[in-house]
């Protein structure tokens, strides 16, 4: 769908990280965790292209004004890295943005009764909150491993804890949780009957995917790539599939075939 959305709130939750809530049509309640949106920050040619963001949350709320039924919202959690996200961070309640969503293929929850293990690196936590909410609602046991360079990169942990998710935090400098990489903490807890859902920087995803494969744990990863269209038309956002060679190329579109992939679908070398 394409629609105009009103900013409801846009709050700096940690230095350089913002959480923005926007109005959305009811149909967005049908979206799945792991899907994303493409946001046009301004109705102008600079920045030109839409910016992709994972769905951090989708839900309903009761507006303050009387005589109005519940209204659907969506949230994104984003890091200010360049021109587009800087402009985004200056938006206020009442501003309008243009959204395309839900896009792409989300996470597959997998069979009930497994232990669902969420692994997020920095801003990679964004799509995992919507996933955690969904899994908890389904009655699953959910654990979250969150990592970052320092305490400022560990986002919205209390939100996860409020859902009843068991959380493990690690930072490179030890300013919050254990000192070290999220993958080191994860490895200590890996076992059978688990399913991993990971999002974060590509080197982290590679480490998680290879670790999961060596432990025989099924693993899905949410990937990023530079995007222009978000709908499978420009072929700008491809990654190499597992069997890709120069002679027999196998490219997958992050926007259409992903952003969530089974770790076996992709080439990690």
């Amino acid at each position: 769908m394409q629609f105009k959305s009103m900013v409801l709130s846009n709050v700096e939750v940690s230095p350089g990280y913002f959480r923005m809530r926007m109005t959305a049509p009811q149909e967005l309640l049908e979206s799945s965790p792991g899907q994303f949106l493409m946001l046009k920050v301004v109705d102008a040619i600079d920045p030109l292209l839409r910016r992709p963001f994972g769905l951090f949350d989708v839900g309903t709320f009761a507006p303050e004004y009387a005589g109005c039924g519940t209204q659907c919202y969506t949230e994104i959690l984003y890091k200010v890295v360049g021109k587009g996200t800087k402009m985004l961070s200056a938006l206020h309640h009442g501003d309008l943005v243009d959204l395309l969503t839900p896009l792409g293929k989300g996470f597959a929850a997998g069979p009930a009764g497994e232990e669902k293990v969420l692994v997020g690196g920095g801003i990679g936590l964004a799509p995992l909150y919507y996933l955690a909410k969904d899994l908890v609602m389904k009655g699953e046991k959910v654990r979250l491993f969150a990592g970052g360079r320092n305490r400022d990169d560990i986002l919205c942990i209390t939100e996860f804890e409020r859902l009843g998710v068991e959380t493990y935090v690690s930072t490179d400098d030890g300013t919050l949780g254990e000192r070290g990489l999220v993958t080191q903490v994860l490895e200590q807890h890996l076992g059978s009957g688990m399913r991993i859902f990971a999002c974060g920087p590509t080197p982290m995803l590679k480490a998680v995917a290879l670790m999961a494969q060596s432990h025989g744990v099924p693993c899905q990863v949410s990937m990023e790539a530079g995007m222009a269209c978000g709908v499978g038309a420009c072929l700008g956002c491809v990654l190499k599939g597992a069997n890709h060679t120069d002679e027999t190329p196998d490219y997958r579109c992050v926007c259409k075939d992903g952003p969530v992939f089974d770790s076996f679908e992709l080439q990690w070398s």
Partner: protein
Amino acid sequence: MTRPDMSVEIAGIKMRNPVMTASGTFGYGAEFVGYLDLESIGAMVSKGLSLKPKAGNPTPRIVETPGGMLNAIGLQNVGVDAFINQKLPYLKDVDTPVIVNLYGNTLEEYGEVAARLDGQPGVAGIEVNISCPNVMQGGIVFGTDPQAAQEVVRLVRNNTSKPMIVKLSPNVTDVVLMAKACADAGADALSLINTLTGMAIDLDKRRPVLANVTGGLSGPAIKPVALRMVWQVAKAVKLPLIGIGGIMNARDALEFILAGATAIQVGTASFLDPGAAQQIARGMEAYLAEKGIPSIASMIGALEV
């Protein structure tokens, strides 16, 4: 009040309005269902097809630049046979002409691709992309050498009975010379422009941003160049022209019509807004209605200099 007549005809292809989608920016059409009505636009142009499926370039393939974007997709496509078998059947039920964009890695491939499309009733016409390197001749781009371009156009002409549009490259010293060469070799219409070759550099990494180093610039940044080229070619050749380059809205589109284009193509704008082509068609009609102009045909080449 009667509605303005927006219909145009390009080399026998009748279109309800002058708005076409540009090759490589509209997938194979089906990707955009739900965002616009495929029967609200004048014609659809497919992704550029080659004889064999083509994998395309390594990544990163795209990067935004001020007012535009660079792409080095590398002409990734499913190949002409898969297009005919998998993509065309769906498009046959859509009442909008389908124009197939094609290219070859060698001269012979151009002829072969055109021949395979010739018997296909669902194909209203072909658009020949001559902005690709000839692998047999050290990668010299067909569309930058008048003789090479003429050879391609003649060969395709001999292999097709369909209306043939030749898409010109802007990366030349004299676009009029190229336009005349293609006209003389049998083109029914010309479309222009393809992307302008450019590059982007990551200063801190001291590396080019695109894996391919260079890429094609598209978007609003190229509109002035495209307008100038359409205007120059319109004065020099009699063939119908299709204007392309940075068209974001109805006013941009109408400027190309004034400069001498019979139709226009919407490219990068469809990435920003998948419904852009339909909105531009609607906006053009609204402009004519507001100004009391009875037909779009009366605006073609009506620029006063």
